């Protein structure tokens, strides 16, 4: 036994530490006792009795998970913290199993109204569990007593918490004695109290200290929790089925054993195993990060400052990321308009969801979730339009422009799925039209229509700017929604038919088109809701609702088709057809060029055309002259990213001399612009 007061008079800082720890101890023990009385011994043991290790590492692993995904999702870090994460998942699963799988969920609905938990509408067990969890978290906040100094502080803080609690308990004892005149002898109470105090506060601590000194804290942690929890399980097993003499003593327990308890027990064991294993293997390597190599060639690590430093760094990174992202978003008109509309849409969705939750209306909620889908599409469009402006990197040598095409493709598929779902549900409702009440939906859908009309206007503005350079002939009416949509379609239509001049691609931005179509589909949905609710409320046509949604889904499907076709043709590397033939004609017209082989033409984005061509030229032709002429010819045909390989007979001789064969296909000669595909 140590002597707490051997170091003399308490200094001021030590006194404040003792006080703070005493307060914390009071709070923890009070919560623990309350939870114990509410949820029974086994559940309390499962959550509380694991030597502070479990909760702390679970929280840390969960925090690390979030920070690693935010800061740097490097593969090494994620694989290192893998078992820890699984342990965290086990812990969460155990808590959830205790919370939701316990047997009292049905009983609570019937409700014993006496418990304090009925204030919050929770069952006794659940409230108790939450309280115990809080207590465990508080305990894990307490720094472990390592040095003798800390131990003395711990002992003193226990005393201080006892002194803090003493007047309260004395007052309560006096008060209760006056009220209900306890018939139990005070000596019995005092003896029980002394026993509890001795067991809980003195013996427990010193025994665990002795054990940890004997076998080491890691293995103690592993064994202790196993022992404690399994003995708790055994005891509660005995309690839950009292037989023989025991049944006379033990009342039919309310803290019975349940399947949820068993599941939580198993999960907690797994969690403890994982944490103790990972903690025992590499206690410090998890926080260390690799810096580089020393002069001798050995790897150097820095010891990271634990989870707190990681958290602060992640917060800093996230702040910087958000600031940079916002600047990038606001730098360009397209992404800016998407961003503003996204904010508007999000606000509307939030209001709708909150109102739906408040009034508990399913229609509003589902409409709100639909708006949330729209927001996700908008977020995707926003990301794509920001990402599309990034400069090329080593692994993305063409830059990120194609992200916009990809986002347009994904948006188109998204719309198709939405349309398909609406179609299916409309068909199933066509047979059995349900009676709907539309009085609450109508104002909401009118508001949604207004929001979406605003979006349509802003995006059609961006459209006319983006596409106006290419097509001057098409009149623009950015006043009403229907003309806008027909305008959008006629654009896509026009470039599929008018091949008169070389590049006539009205919509150079598949991303914006996808977003536009999304907003348009939403507008159509709002219009449909308004029309159908009018029909239902005035004429009682309950079938109007499925018919409307059928029509709308067909409309969406058909209007998405052109976008889908365009993005597929870009993503599948189809060659831009009139331009490619034109370029081949121009290339073969250069003097000295005998034939083209391995022609590769593709459209990188909607307005960037690329070409890679091998030209076989006459032996006496000047290569650099032909190169310049060919590049110029490709440029006039609209290809701006080009690579031309000039080959003479000498090249083939060199290649065969080095033992290489020259693969060749798609040979085009001058006299017949005919494509010969070399068969294998």
């Amino acid at each position, binding site marked *: 036994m140590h002597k707490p007061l051997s170091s003399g008079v308490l200094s001021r800082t030590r006194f404040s530490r003792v006080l703070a720890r005493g307060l914390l101890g009071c709070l923890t023990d009070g919560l623990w006792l309350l939870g114990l009385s509410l949820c029974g011994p086994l559940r309390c043991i499962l959550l509380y009795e694991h030597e502070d290790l479990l909760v702390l590492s679970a929280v840390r692993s969960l925090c690390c998970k979030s920070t690693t995904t935010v800061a740097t999702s490097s593969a090494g870090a994620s694989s290192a913290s893998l078992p820890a994460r699984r342990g965290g998942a086990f812990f969460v699963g155990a808590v959830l199993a205790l919370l939701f*799988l316990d047997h009292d969920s049905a009983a609570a609905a019937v409700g014993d109204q006496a418990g304090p938990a009925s204030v919050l509408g929770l069952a006794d067990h659940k409230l108790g569990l939450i309280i115990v969890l809080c207590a465990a978290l508080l305990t894990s906040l307490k720094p472990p007593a390592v040095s003798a100094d800390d131990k003395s502080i711990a002992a003193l803080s226990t005393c201080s918490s006892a002194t803090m609690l003493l007047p309260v308990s004395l007052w309560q004892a006096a008060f209760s004695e006056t009220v209900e005149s306890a018939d139990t002898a005070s000596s019995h109470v005092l003896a029980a109290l002394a026993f509890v105090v001795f067991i809980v506060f003195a013996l427990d601590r010193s025994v665990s200290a002795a054990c940890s000194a004997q076998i080491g804290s890691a293995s103690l942690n592993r064994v202790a929790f196993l022992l404690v929890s399994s003995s708790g399980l055994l005891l509660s097993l005995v309690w839950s089925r009292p037989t023989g003499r025991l049944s006379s003593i033990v009342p039919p327990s309310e803290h019975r054993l349940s399947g949820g308890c068993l599941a939580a027990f198993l999960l907690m064991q797994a969690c403890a195993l994982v944490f103790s294993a990972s903690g025992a293997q590499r206690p410090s390597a998890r926080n260390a990060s690799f810096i580089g190599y020393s002069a001798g060639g050995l790897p150097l690590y820095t010891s990271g400052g634990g989870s707190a430093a990681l958290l602060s760094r992640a917060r800093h990174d996230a702040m910087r990321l958000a600031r940079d992202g916002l600047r990038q978003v606001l730098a360009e008109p397209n992404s800016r308009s998407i961003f503003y509309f996204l904010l508007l849409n999000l606000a509307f969705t939030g209001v709708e969801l909150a109102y739906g939750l408040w009034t508990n209306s399913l229609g509003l909620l589902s409409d709100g979730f639909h708006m949330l889908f729209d927001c996700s599409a908008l977020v995707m469009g926003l990301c794509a339009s920001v990402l599309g402006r990034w400069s090329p990197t080593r692994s993305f040598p063409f830059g990120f422009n194609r992200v916009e095409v990809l986002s347009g493709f994904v948006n188109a598929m998204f719309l198709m799925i939405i349309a398909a779902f609406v179609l299916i549900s409309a068909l199933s409702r066509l047979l059995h039209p349900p009676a709907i009440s539309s009085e609450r939906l109508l104002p909401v859908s009118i508001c949604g229509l207004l929001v979406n009309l605003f979006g349509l206007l802003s995006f059609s503005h961006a459209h006319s700017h983006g596409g106006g350079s290419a097509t001057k002939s098409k009149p623009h009416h950015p006043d009403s929604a229907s003309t806008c949509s027909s305008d959008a379609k*006629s654009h896509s239509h026009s470039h599929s038919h008018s091949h008169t001049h070389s590049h006539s691609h009205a919509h150079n931005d598949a991303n914006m088109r996808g977003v536009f179509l999304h907003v348009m589909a939403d507008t159509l949905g709002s219009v449909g809701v308004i029309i159908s609710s009018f029909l239902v409320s005035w004429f009682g046509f309950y079938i109007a609702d499925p018919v409307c949604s059928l029509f709308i889904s067909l409309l969406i499907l058909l209007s998405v088709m052109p976008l889908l076709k365009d993005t597929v043709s870009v993503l*599948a590397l189809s060659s831009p057809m009139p331009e490619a033939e034109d370029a081949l004609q121009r290339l073969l017209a250069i003097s000295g060029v005998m034939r083209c082989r391995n022609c590769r033409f593709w459209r990188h984005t909607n307005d960037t055309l690329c070409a890679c061509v091998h030209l076989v030229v006459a032996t006496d032709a000047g290569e650099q002259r032909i190169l310049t002429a060919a590049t110029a010819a490709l440029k006039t045909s609209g290809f701006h990213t080009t*690579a031309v390989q000039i080959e003479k007979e000498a090249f083939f001789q060199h290649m065969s*001399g080095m033992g290489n064969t020259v693969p060749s296909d798609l040979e085009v000669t001058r006299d017949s612009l005919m494509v010969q*595909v070399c068969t294998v």
Partner: protein
Amino acid sequence: ILALLHELRDAYSNVVAFVRELAVQLAMLQAEEKRAKRILAVGGLLLISVCLLTVWGHLNPSMTLGAFTCLLLFDLCYIGVALVSLWVERRQRCLAYTFGYERFEVLAVFASLMLAILGVFFVLKECVERAFEPPDVTPSGLALGGLVGLVVHLVAVYSVENPAYNHVIDASTSSWLQEHVTDISESLCHHVPGLSKLLLPRLNPLALLGVSSAMCLFLASCLLDAYQSSLADITMAVLAAFVVVVTMAPMAAYCGKILLQSTPAHLVGQLDKALGEAATLDGVLELRKERTWLTGFGQLNGCLQVRVRRDASEQLVLAHVTNRLAHLVPGLTVQVYKDDWSRGLQPSASWVAPRFNPFAPPAAPSAAAASHAVAPASSASSFLAGSSSPHPSAASTAVSEANLPDLLLPASFAPPNPFTSHAGVSFMLPPPPPPPPMPPSTSSSTFHQRY
């Protein structure tokens, strides 16, 4: 409005034409390929089981069963991808698709993965709605439905040969689920070594997905049995949806990167090494705008600009650069250019060509060149594998080799190791071979060029 109707009619006729074309292609495939029949048979089985599960889901509105039905719908897409790769196999390059049709495979895989992920969104939405208005779900038949679905899913995954998906599964990074299962099974094999043959190889993520979804369904049925709360069903549905997203996301990322014309990450090291070697070739001043991308699964294309010295021979440099990179990038286009060529060319235009190609008469080797021009394209695929390429020293009888002695390096250097750092490049280069006997005129010129 008339214009709108016209547009819609046009789009409708387009769709009808597309569907008809699809049916025609499908019939052709089915008539000519034995594999297609098998795939279609499995597809029919899938369709039947999807209908079965849908009806089941109508009778017993369990959300977890709905999620499982979505998984079977994804299997239909999987079957469709197998059909697409059969179709692609039979198509050849044409001017409309100069890279061939391999990209359609990538697109099909990406589309199916994205459809699965987007479908999951709808499952989640449905879950949230049901959390507010819970229908009465009974546990009866859920486990049976899960069993039927699992069997059909496993049949679809394992009985259909699907090269595109196999490639994606091999090449993409492991999913979260795979990592955890591997970790657990490793520690399991630590205790029970007999299981190592079964558990230690990389598990198929789709099979894993099916098993975990079915487990969700069983668990949901157990929980419903025990607690009669539809919350259990919803929780399990959310869990199943999460597993689907987690499994599909890495594969979708891999396909998306191919669609974005990016250099595959595992080839960057090898490419850098080969480019570093090409930059040290004689006459090469710099390599610019090196761009490589995958067209399909495995077919690497690239283009490159090489700036050469003003007095270097373009054809020679071109041949050597192509030779150096051909095993990595079969479809390579090298643009050789000189700085300010007009000024350099004028005084030397008369002698540059004869000086470096004295043994290249235009008429004599044309037959050989023509035969190489129509060389079988299958050699390209063997180059990609990097396993074998012919040795130039063995085939040294060609005429043109006499004038490139100082650049002669074996084309088949050891298969590049991605783990060697750049310091290892110079180490791996074989020492330049001793100059073979050559005509005196050529040797003087090359030595002049070199020193």
